[in-house]
């Protein structure tokens, strides 16, 4: 909002420099964002930002009141001339049908108006506040709005049919052609001002074209009312129309300002527009604050909340300058009376803020709490997240943070089945409507972006919630999860050779991750996924914790990826339940180990995991470790088969194994493995 400092000078003294006043206002919570010198209007304009709790600041008088509170300069109110001998508004009727939407409505008739050009002084002030001069009548209503904060509306009284003003709900499908030239279709939740035949204004929001004042207007019907903030807000949002009036009504105008604003306008109409004949005021309803609210405040409460010792006279002085009429019950207790324009002050704590604000937050010293330590509640999931981040960054992965809202269309095209998903009703982008059930789309998009930027490889991860719809009444489920994607070259610098990151790299990362977490018994078993080609379900014991695979061509083409990325997803919410409480030390083996190798040629389709398990089983506890150290095809290996080489470590925890014993066991293992898997058994070392 723009405030003319010239205008302020009508009400308060502004001791220069203006920068000092601006700074003081800012530090009292009335933030002056900019100071604009406007020599063309011989003015300096404050651009202020006003919080929603202070509608009383939305006028020059309101800002002047604040300056008086912080500067104690004295406050002069605008002149309102009271002319006792007014005429009755002959034949005019006022009918307030909707008292909830409009608790208090007033209007009066002004006859013989000479609507013409507006005096320069008034035009300049309006211009300084960003308003264009329209005609004298409209300008006077705007002037009073900016001066007192009370929105007014002037109807051309000769265009109001049947000498009747009705405040009522709109009829369904009733239409109003508003002053902005647009037609608004109304509904029964909207409040309108109507004449005998039709709606002539959208109450508190905008007047109608059909009763608009013009240079030909001779007689005015001047409206000043208190419209209910919620009603105005609802209509303003529903029809998508906001005005200087609705902005103030929504935030609540001063009920006493209704009469004051109207009389101020009447004064100006008499002074500037040649109006001589003014009617009695038509009134309906009651001002919403009949009795003034009184609040008790004690010095003790001020000190308790702020944590600072204060002098009683300081508190008293602030309250008095704010116009709160403090009355001492005893030297450290007050009863204050809340003026009608301060509806934000309802409780003693609100007064404590006023005392702190006006005396200055900088006057409150900084202290540090002295408190005993409190019990800390462990958060295993958060600990796991942080350990996961550290491990993965150390393993060469970049953490990403991507939007939880994704495009369901490309997600579906990539092969993902959308069921039990959560959608957004009011998306900001047409595409971003889905709360993601997987990291696939997000990470594929990051990879694609980086590939376009020239990266030859990317190993990325994200930790965040994934969302799934539950029943209609329950909140959707949020499951803390980890997504990983790896693609492109695994680089070894000039030592080469480079090769591409694949499924096995990602699997290796997960195996190390599980090992470091102390999670035992993880298994990767084949399972198809619609968006993966070659994939496995990851289980720990019986519990499924995630999956891993190579993305399907549908994914590669949807995001235009260069290669076949490996993708994995792990539920941290599930994994955290499988973490060992503490890692338990196992005694180091005291007896020597013996290594033996075993090379086999087996069918291409055979799963190596089966052989590894079989070897362990056959080893009868004496095989401490089996390592696959080579996997080869071609050469002497026939087509449709593969060569594999294992290194077994034989070791007992109880005694030294004799060399003959190891040899015998190894031969047995080798023979049985070969028989079971139909392997041609190459040699035994």
């Amino acid at each position: 909002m723009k405030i003319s400092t010239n205008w302020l000078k009508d009400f308060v003294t502004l001791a220069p420099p203006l920068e000092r006043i601006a700074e003081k206002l800012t530090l009292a919570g009335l933030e002056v964002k900019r100071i604009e010198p406007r020599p063309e209007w011989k003015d300096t304009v404050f651009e202020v930002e006003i919080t929603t709790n202070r509608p009383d600041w939305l006028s020059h008088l309101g800002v002047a009141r604040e300056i008086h509170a912080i500067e104690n300069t004295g406050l002069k109110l605008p002149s309102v001339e009271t002319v006792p001998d007014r005429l009755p508004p002959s034949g005019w009727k006022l009918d307030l049908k909707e008292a909830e939407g409009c608790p208090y409505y007033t209007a009066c008739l002004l006859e013989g108006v000479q609507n013409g050009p507006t005096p320069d002084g008034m035009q300049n002030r309006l211009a300084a506040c960003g308003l264009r001069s329209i005609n004298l009548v409209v300008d006077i209503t705007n002037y009073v709005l900016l001066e007192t904060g009370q929105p007014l509306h002037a109807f051309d009284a000769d265009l109001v049919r049947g000498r009747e003003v009705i405040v009522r709900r709109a009829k369904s499908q009733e239409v109003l052609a508003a002053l902005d030239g647009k037609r608004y279709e109304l509904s029964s939740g909207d409040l309108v001002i109507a004449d005998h035949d039709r709606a002539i204004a959208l109450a508190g929001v905008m007047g109608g074209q059909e009763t608009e004042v013009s240079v030909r207007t001779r007689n005015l019907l001047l409206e000043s009312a208190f419209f209910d903030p919620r009603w105005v807000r609802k209509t303003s949002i529903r029809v998508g129309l906001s005005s200087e009036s609705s902005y103030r009504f929504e935030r609540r105008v001063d009920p006493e300002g209704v009469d004051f604003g109207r009389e101020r306008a009447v004064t100006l109409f008499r002074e500037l527009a040649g109006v001589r004949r003014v009617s009695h005021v038509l009134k309906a309803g009651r001002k919403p604050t009949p009795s003034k609210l009184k609040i008790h405040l004690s010095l003790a409460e001020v000190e308790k909340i702020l944590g600072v010792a204060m002098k009683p006279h300081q508190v008293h002085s602030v309250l008095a300058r704010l116009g709160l009429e403090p009355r001492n019950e005893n030297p450290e207790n007050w009863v204050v009376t809340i003026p009608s324009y301060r509806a934000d002050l309802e409780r003693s704590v609100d007064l404590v803020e006023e005392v702190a604000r006006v005396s200055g937050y900088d006057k409150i010293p900084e202290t540090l709490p002295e408190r005993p330590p409190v019990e800390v509640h462990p958060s295993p999931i958060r600990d796991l997240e942080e350990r996961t981040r550290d491990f993965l960054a150390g393993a060469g992965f970049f953490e990403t943070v991507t939007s939880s809202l994704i495009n369901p269309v490309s997600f579906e095209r990539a092969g993902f089945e959308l069921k039990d998903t959560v959608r957004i009703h009011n998306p900001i982008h047409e595409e971003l409507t889905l709360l993601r059930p997987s990291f696939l789309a997000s990470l594929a998009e990051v990879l694609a972006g980086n590939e376009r930027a020239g990266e030859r490889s990317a190993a990325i991860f994200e930790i965040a919630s994934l969302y799934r719809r539950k029943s209609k009444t329950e909140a959707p489920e949020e499951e803390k999860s980890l997504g990983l994607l790896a693609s492109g070259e695994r680089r070894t610098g000039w030592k080469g050779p480079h090769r591409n990151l694949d499924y096995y790299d990602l699997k290796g990362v997960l195996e190390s991750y599980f090992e470091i977490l102390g999670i035992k018994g993880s298994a990767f078993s084949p399972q198809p996924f619609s968006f993966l080609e070659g994939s496995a379900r990851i289980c720990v014991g019986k519990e499924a914790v995630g999956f891993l695979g190579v993305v399907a061509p549908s994914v590669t083409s949807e995001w235009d990826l260069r290669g076949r990325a490996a993708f994995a997803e792990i539920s941290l919410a599930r994994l955290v339940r499988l973490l060992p409480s503490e890692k338990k030390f196992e005694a180091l083996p005291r007896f020597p180990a013996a290594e033996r190798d075993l090379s086999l040629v087996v069918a291409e389709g055979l799963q190596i995991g089966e052989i590894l398990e079989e070897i362990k089983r056959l080893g009868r506890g004496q095989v401490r470790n089996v390592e696959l150290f080579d996997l080869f095809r071609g050469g002497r290996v026939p087509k449709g088969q593969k060569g594999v080489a294992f290194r077994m470590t034989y070791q007992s925890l109880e005694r030294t194994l004799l060399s003959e014993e190891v040899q015998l066991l190894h031969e047995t293992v080798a023979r049985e493995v070969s028989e079971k898997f139909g392997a041609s058994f190459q040699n035994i070392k």
Partner: protein
Amino acid sequence: MNPEELQNLAREAQSRLESLQTPAQLEEFRIAYLGRKGKVTCLFEALKTAPSEERRTLGQKLNELKNSLEEKLKGRQSGLSASGGREKEFLDPTLPGIRPASGRIHPLTQTIRRITGIFERLGFEVAEGPEIETEFYNFTALNIPLDHPSRDAFATFYTQVDSPRESPFLLRSQTSTVQIRVMQKRKPPLRIIAPGRVYRPDRVDASHAFMFHQIEGLMVDERTTFSELKGVLHLFLRQLLGPETKIRFRPHFFPFTEPSAEVDVNCFLCDGRGCSVCGGKGWLELLGAGSVDPAVFEQVGYDPKRVQGFAFGLGVERIAMLMHGISDIRMFLENDLRFLRQF
């Protein structure tokens, strides 16, 4: 033969021996100096023709040289065989190192860690809450009336429903929701710090995103004053931004705190002189804060006469942008590796 000749030979042999790298080279050396036709052996022959008065001393020196060379040769030979006897490769110290793959923690996570770390040292505990919330936690319990303009600052995404009878959920537009959840579950004393994602349907530009991160702090016990709020936040900001950091509390309005303040720090980019980042004001707005409004305590079933508290909130992106000189908020969600590598 003369003493000078002997001395030259000794120097030459010595320096050659030091430069030899392989067993083969050592063998060559042995033959060349100590072999039957070696240079040292030959000198023994030459000794015979030396003048007799010098023969004795020269002979002694020659013997010493022979013994010392033999000894050093042996030393080098055993040294080489200890290193496997392989030929020593030429090592180029300027050749680029082979780097292990090294990843990064996202700068937003790093910022969250720094901030929560400071508060954890001050005795606060990290808490989290759901992102999908109800109007109660996002608005009502925080004293934000549903039909009031104060809600406009918290524009909100709602979830789709199948029928008008279902009530939609919303994506939290602030982490203050966690305050309510924690207070409902526990009794004071409380000291929590709650980082998390928040969502607002704002137009996206260099300083606005529809998803961003906030950190909410809350301290509640029998007597937590506004003065302590000032003390704790200044301590925090000094730890985050440096010991010279100055702060300014400016009155503001939040429905869930009373008194409320916005907290500014002196612009560390221009030292408070005024620059484009602080808009010439010399101050940067960093946090919102205040004493917990009694209405919020009532919503969670605390007796406002018995408890007092303070709460504060800050935007993680804003702080990360200021600290690292990032001018566009969209960089955080783009995840360009060239960007991430810098942190």
